[in-house]
C-alpha cells in the first residue's frame, strides 16, 4: 500500500492516458484507469525493473518538457541537413566513439535515444559512459569534437538536471 501511495503520480498519469484513450469522462472510466494503472505499475516494478519506478525514472517534469521541445527542433534541423546530404550524395558513414559526462544510467539512456532520434546519428552501443555512434556525415575523427557536435545541446540540458537530483552512482 505504501508503495502504491509513493507512486501516486505515475498512477495518476496512467489514469489520465486511460481516460483520454477511452474518450469518456465517467466515474467508472476513471476508476478503471486507476486500477489498470496500479496493476501495470505493480507488474513492471515486480517483474521488469526489480526496483522502484521513482528511484530509476527520476527526472524533473519541467526539464522533460523543455527537453522534448529542443528534441523536436533538433530533429527538424538535423533532418533537413541530412536531406541535403542524401540528395547531393555526399555521405561519409563512419563510426565515432566518445564519452559523455553524464553519470546517471537513465540520463545516459535518454541521451543515447535522443542521438538515435536525431537524423544522421544512430547510437550503436553504450557501455557505462562510453557511446559508440554511427554518423552519416563524419567529418572528424577526433572523439571530443565529434561528441561535442553530436550531443552538444542534449548534454547541456541534461547535465544540470542530473546535478539537481544529486545522483552519482
Amino acid at each position, binding site marked *: 500500500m505504501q508503495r502504491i501511495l509513493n507512486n501516486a503520480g505515475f498512477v495518476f498519469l496512467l489514469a489520465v492516458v486511460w481516460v*483520454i484513450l477511452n474518450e469518456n469522462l465517467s466515474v467508472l472510466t476513471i476508476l478503471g484507469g486507476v486500477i489498470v494503472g496500479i496493476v501495470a505499475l505493480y507488474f513492471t516494478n515486480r517483474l521488469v525493473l526489480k526496483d522502484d519506478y521513482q528511484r530509476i525514472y527520476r527526472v524533473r517534469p519541467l526539464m522533460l518538457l523543455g527537453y522534448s521541445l529542443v528534441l523536436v527542433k533538433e530533429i527538424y534541423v538535423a*533532418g533537413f541537413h541530412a536531406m541535403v546530404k*542524401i540528395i547531393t550524395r555526399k555521405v561519409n558513414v563512419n563510426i565515432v566513439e566518445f564519452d559523455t559526462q553524464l553519470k546517471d544510467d537513465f540520463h545516459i539512456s535518454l541521451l543515447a535515444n535522443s542521438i*538515435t*532520434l536525431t537524423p544522421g546519428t*544512430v547510437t550503436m552501443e553504450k557501455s557505462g559512459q562510453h557511446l559508440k555512434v554511427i554518423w552519416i556525415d563524419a567529418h572528424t575523427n577526433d572523439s571530443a569534437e565529434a561528441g561535442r557536435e553530436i550531443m552538444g545541446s542534449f548534454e547541456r540540458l541534461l547535465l544540470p538536471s542530473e546535478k539537481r537530483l544529486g545522483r552519482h552512482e
Partner: protein
Amino acid sequence: MNTLAQAVSTAFLVVSMFFFFVTTLGLFRFKTVYARLHIAGKCLTGGALSVILAYLVVAPTPAAAFRLFIAMLLLLFTNALGTHAITRGSHHSGVELNTLEENSMAGTAFDPRPRMTPDASGEGDA
C-alpha cells in the same frame, strides 16, 4: 484563425511528403546496411512526426489532440528503440561499415534493382 491552422497543417503535410520522398530516394540510392538504416530511421522521425503535427494543429476536439500526442510519444520512443536494436544487432553479427545489403529478392519479380532510377523510386511511397 481556422484558416491559419489549416495553412500550418498543410505546411506540415508538405514537409512530411518531402521527408518521405527523400527517404524513398535514399533507400534506393545507398547500398550499405548502415546508410540504409540511417535513412529508414529518418522516414519516421521526420515524416511521421510532421504528419502527426499536421493533424494535431487541426484536431477537432481536445481529446483527439491528446490521443495524437500520445501516438506521437509512442512513435518517438519505439522508433529510437527499434533503430537502435537493429543497428546493435547488425554490429554484433559482424556487419562492417561497407557491407552491402543482401538482396533477398534477387531473381524474383520483386527485385528492386532493375527499377532503381530516382523518379521511379519516388513514385512508390511519396
